[in-house]
């Protein structure tokens, strides 16, 4: 059997192609406002058509993995927050669960439910930023302001709970840092009621079913399911291509198997499945599903007796020798941690599989043959956060 097919490097192959005398190399970024951070993309263009693309990352590299080797396990949490700064709750939840799995810590159902509430609120907030900035990328300013206004209310809830608005250090190994304050459930209910009745329908009217939005995106950046799986696109990017896979259903954690919600998949209503439109549509519908999960979780919290959220927090986190790979469904896709412990208080090795990093690795395939203006639409639809790509 052939070991594997040979992969051709488009970029270098085209450099030696004598027929392409009209090509121009166009540099985009790293300070381009639509690259969502500091991303630089080199484009080989022929007129307005992109013949090959080459992304350059690493401008935001902060040696997360090296830092982890030099601090203890609770000390990793603030660094993990700073990877995907739009969805910090998801990052720390993943790391906390990874360490708990290696230590064999089982947290109480109350803590699990609190974590689910936080993770889903964060998912709504994160998707609001994703869709909001996306509309701004492609030229609509108002939805961005509306969505940031709504996200602000979720950040207020986070601030009320743990004091921080962006980087929370909320999920700890074995628990969470603060219990929910009195009145939190009611305030969250009010927020969700507003979300269901006003924000979500408005979002659909203003953006998703907007004729301009649909026409602009329904045929742009089409990603086949095979390419998505081979390049490890996950989360809304994978589901946008029509693959109904969600870790909250497939390998549940935090008791997600007990919640009733649907896995949203791109339908291709207006064009081929897997387009930029589908990826955004999935994000918006996922916000509604998150709201459903939140309603159920709040129902449970109301009936549940409060438990000590620090009950299982170990005095010294010292996992046994061994290794574990654990994934969670973060707002941007599957966030994986590979953790190797040598029985010390510091991790021996932490590797983060960032969903944005793998999504970006498919970029040169998707960008080939596109118009230059569509590159902006493509980058935004993958919903990358450079802090997580570069770590």
């Amino acid at each position, binding site marked *: *059997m*052939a*070991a*594997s*097919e*040979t*992969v*051709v*490097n488009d*970029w*270098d192959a085209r450099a030696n192609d004598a027929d392409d005398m009209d090509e121009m190399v166009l540099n985009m970024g790293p300070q381009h406002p639509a690259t969502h951070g500091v991303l630089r993309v080199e484009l080989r263009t022929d007129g307005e058509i992109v013949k090959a693309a080459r992304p350059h*990352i*690493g401008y935001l*590299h902060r*040696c997360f*993995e*090296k830092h982890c080797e030099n601090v203890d396990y609770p000390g990793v949490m603030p660094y993990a927050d700073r990877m995907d700064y739009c969805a910090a709750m998801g990052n720390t939840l993943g790391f906390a669960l990874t360490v708990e*799995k*290696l230590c064999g810590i089982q947290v109480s159902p109350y803590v699990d439910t609190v974590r689910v509430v936080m993770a889903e609120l964060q998912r709504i907030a994160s998707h609001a930023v994703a869709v909001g900035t996306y509309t701004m990328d492609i030229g609509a300013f108002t939805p961005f302001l509306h969505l940031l206004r709504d996200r602000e209310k979720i950040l207020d809830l986070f601030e009320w709970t743990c004091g921080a608005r962006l980087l929370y250090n909320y999920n700890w190994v074995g628990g969470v840092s603060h219990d929910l304050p009195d009145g939190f459930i009611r305030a969250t209910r009010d927020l969700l009621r507003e979300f269901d009745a006003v924000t979500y329908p408005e979002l659909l009217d203003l953006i998703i079913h907007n004729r301009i939005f649909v026409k602009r995106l329904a045929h742009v950046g089409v990603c086949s399911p095979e*390419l998505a*799986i*081979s*390049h*490890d696109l996950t989360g809304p990017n994978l589901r946008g291509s029509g*693959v109904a*896979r969600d870790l909250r259903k*497939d*390998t549940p954690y935090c008791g997600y198997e007990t919640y009733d919600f649907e896995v949203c998949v791109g339908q291709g209503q207006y064009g081929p499945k897997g387009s930029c439109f589908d990826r955004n549509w999935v994000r918006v519908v996922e916000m509604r599903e998150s709201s459903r999960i939140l309603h159920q979780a709040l129902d449970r919290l109301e009936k549940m007796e409060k438990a000590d959220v620090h009950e299982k927090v170990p005095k010294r986190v010292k996992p046994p020798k*061994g*290794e*574990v*790979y*654990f*994934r969670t469904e973060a707002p941007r896709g*599957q966030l*994986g941690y*590979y953790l*190797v412990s040598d029985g010390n208080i510091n991790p*021996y*090795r932490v*590797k983060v*599989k960032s969903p944005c*990093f*793998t999504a*970006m*690795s*498919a970029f040169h*395939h998707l960008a080939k043959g596109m118009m230059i203006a569509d590159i902006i639409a493509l980058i935004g639809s993958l919903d990358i956060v450079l802090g997580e790509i*570069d*770590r």
Partner: protein
Amino acid sequence: MDPRAIHETLVAKFGDTITGAFLEGPSPFAVVAKDAIAEVAAFCKASPDLAFDNLMCLSGVDYPKETPPRMEVVYHLYSYTHLHTFALKVHVPREGPAVPTVEGTWGVANWHERECWDLFGIVFTGHSDMRRILLPDDWEGHPLRRDWQDPEYYNGLHVKPTVQMAERALAGEVIGVGPFDFTPANRHVDE
């Protein structure tokens, strides 16, 4: 399939090239001889029983204290068809480490392998685009190796504060922002 069955399938197909396995615990793995990894990877994806169509993660790990000292490349596989996971490991020597690439099997390996080369110095033979990815192109060395020492200079800038800076700071002088002041020594003024 459970990890034991996956391991048995691999042993039945490849025999001695599967040199070891650890099937207990939360993440079971098999060790593969390094020259065979590309064939094993292609088989893992193509075999309908295994159907590992997704490479979840590819990581390097450095073990300088093992005998003999070694580095590992760890491939975490996932099957969207059967929803099972498994891991393959390859042992490479710390001097002149090289592993065949698997980017022909899983597209995402292209970037993961570049990262592994960037941070560990493991060369992936046959890779189409072996460049640094996270660190600058002119960076020297591979920082995630356990014996890494920070260089004194990078592009003419002090990476660490100099002794002179430390002395001036200890004498009470405010230099930049304390220990984070990375400005190069001003030779003109010092001399």
